[in-house]
């Protein structure tokens, strides 16, 4: 399997986050200069040809998204970077911003000039205080070097960029909630269709919202070409990818591997297998919103299409591994608790459903549940699926439904034995 470490080559090195280091060792804004020579149309075509799909979770083709921005609109256009990284299990954008912020900034400048935007907002989650500071510093370096400001690289193209900090709300990773949050409002998702951000985005203007990792992939595509990018990963799922692995493996952490990398190889070889000599029980392949995979289902490749085929998703590549000493109902309690707390409360199925799912799972875990509760959980999930303004409803329903479906026997034991068969989750 062909691979070339692109993102994480220098992680952990001293001064890696500074412009000097980036110029000396990495793309160093050479891709920006090349993109200026190519012109917007050719850059857009190159990104389209690369097949780059959004790394935030949905896997939408990046070039297509850029192409949606109307060319003849008189309104200002905006580029917004989604650095709200809050999907449980995900920590890749944090590394990009901490170690190679200039790779993201360079990609963002190329993107902004391609869609004719003159303002870039980086919406970073509020908890990333350190990363926001590093990013502010990197942006200042880019201004001082003339890559941002009144004339990008001497072209006369005016471009500004600022960091906008969130304040602790998972929902702001949803792009329309994020746009409201930039506008100084509650982070509540907007109804769409009819209007998508490309038509009516932030401040009522055409807007592209891209994930940090997506933009960080752009300098490579421009500098080395779309053909190079397509050397990695299977068809329709190209490029190198940052996988976040956590939970019960011996060596959790961030691993850069090609798209389509086998999940079991990552767990067994790269991460040194399951800790404490235990066995694999289940795994979230793409953050807590992705339907859970049983151990047997983990024989799958990590890319958008392969995971969709087995009824789950790559999402943000937040892989959380669970060992066989863990109580699945307790995992469900933690999962449901998160969605209950983080629901913005706009839509009834999500606001009420989250609380119901939490309460039912808590009751079952204590051994106080009824056998009908299992069907009730599925019923509530079915009523949340597709009935809310944003995808938060599905993000809650999918994993919780998958748990009760795939581990039904374990749920039933909680009812018949009137206690948790695992005691305290194996700790």
């Amino acid at each position, binding site marked *: 399997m062909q691979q070339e470490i692109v993102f994480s080559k220098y992680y952990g090195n001293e001064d890696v986050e500074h412009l000097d280091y980036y110029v000396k060792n990495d793309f160093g804004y050479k891709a920006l200069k090349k993109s200026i020579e190519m012109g917007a149309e050719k850059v857009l075509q190159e990104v389209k040809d690369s097949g780059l799909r959004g790394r935030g979770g949905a896997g939408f083709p990046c070039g297509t998204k850029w192409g949606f921005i109307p060319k003849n609109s008189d309104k200002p256009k905006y580029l917004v970077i989604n650095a709200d990284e809050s999907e449980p299990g995900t920590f890749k954008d944090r590394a990009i911003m901490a170690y190679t912020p200039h790779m993201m900034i360079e990609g963002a400048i190329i993107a902004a000039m391609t869609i004719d935007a003159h303002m870039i907002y980086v919406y970073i989650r509020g908890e990333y205080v350190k990363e926001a500071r590093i990013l502010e510093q990197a942006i200042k370096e880019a201004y001082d070097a003339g890559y941002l400001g009144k004339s990008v690289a001497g072209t006369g193209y005016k471009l500004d960029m600022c960091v906008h900090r969130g304040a602790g709300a998972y929902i702001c990773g949803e792009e329309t909630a994020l746009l409201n949050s930039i506008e100084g409002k*509650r*982070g509540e998702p907007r109804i769409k269709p009819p209007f998508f951000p490309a038509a009516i985005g932030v*401040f009522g203007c055409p807007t592209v919202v891209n994930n940090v990792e997506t933009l960080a992939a752009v300098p490579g595509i421009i500098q080395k070409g779309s053909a190079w990018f397509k050397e990695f990963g299977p068809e329709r799922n190209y490029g190198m990818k940052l996988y976040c692995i956590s939970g019960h493996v011996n060596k*959790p952490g961030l691993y850069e591997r090609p798209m389509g990398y086998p999940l079991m190889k990552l767990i067994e070889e790269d991460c040194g297998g399951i800790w404490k000599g235990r066995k694999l029980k289940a795994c979230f392949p793409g953050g807590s919103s992705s339907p859970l995979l049983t151990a047997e289902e983990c024989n799958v490749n990590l890319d958008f299409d392969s995971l969709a085929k087995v009824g789950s998703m790559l999402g943000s590549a937040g892989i959380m591994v669970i060992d066989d000493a863990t109580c699945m109902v307790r995992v469900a309690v933690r999962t449901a608790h998160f969605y209950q707390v*983080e629901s913005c409360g706009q839509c009834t199925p999500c606001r009420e459903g989250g609380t119901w799912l939490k309460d039912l799972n808590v009751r079952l875990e204590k051994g106080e549940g009824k056998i009908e509760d299992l069907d009730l959980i599925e019923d509530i999930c079915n009523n949340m699926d597709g009935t809310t303004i944003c995808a938060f409803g599905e993000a809650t329903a999918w994993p919780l439904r998958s748990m009760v479906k795939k581990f039904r026997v374990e749920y039933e034991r909680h009812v018949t034995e009137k206690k948790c068969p695992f005691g305290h989750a194996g700790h």
Partner: protein
Amino acid sequence: MEKNFSKEFLSEMNRIKGFYPNKQAMLLPALHAIQKERGWISDDTMQDIADFLEIPKTKVKEVATFYHMFHTKPVGKYNFQFCNNIACWLRGSEQLIHHVEKKYGIRMGETTKDGKLTLSEVECLGSCGTAPVCQLNDDYKENLDLEALDRLLGSIN
């Protein structure tokens, strides 16, 4: 009205105002900046921010109460914000939380009587590869175990 604000606050607002087409968009940055100075966001502070940005106080309040990081009541000098989401929980975060509860006689969400320590639960902090994690005020404390936590608690006494 500007008498209510520090020089630092006003210069920060001055630095960012050119980036936004209207004043309401400066609300989150303004709330962050003011909370950094005053520790939390009281009703009076909401009024100050509303006056400063020339928006109704209700707009400030609905935003300040929506986001978990804005404190609408005082928090301790040391805010221990534990993640107890899936990845941290799988690596033993619950044990750490119970340890703090027992040691200080407070429960999740409470502050010690001397106002020194607050125990809070936060959702996934994006540090799952180095779980369990606790954010002490602004700083991440990663790869925690009971021993490391005790050292941390000792360092603030």
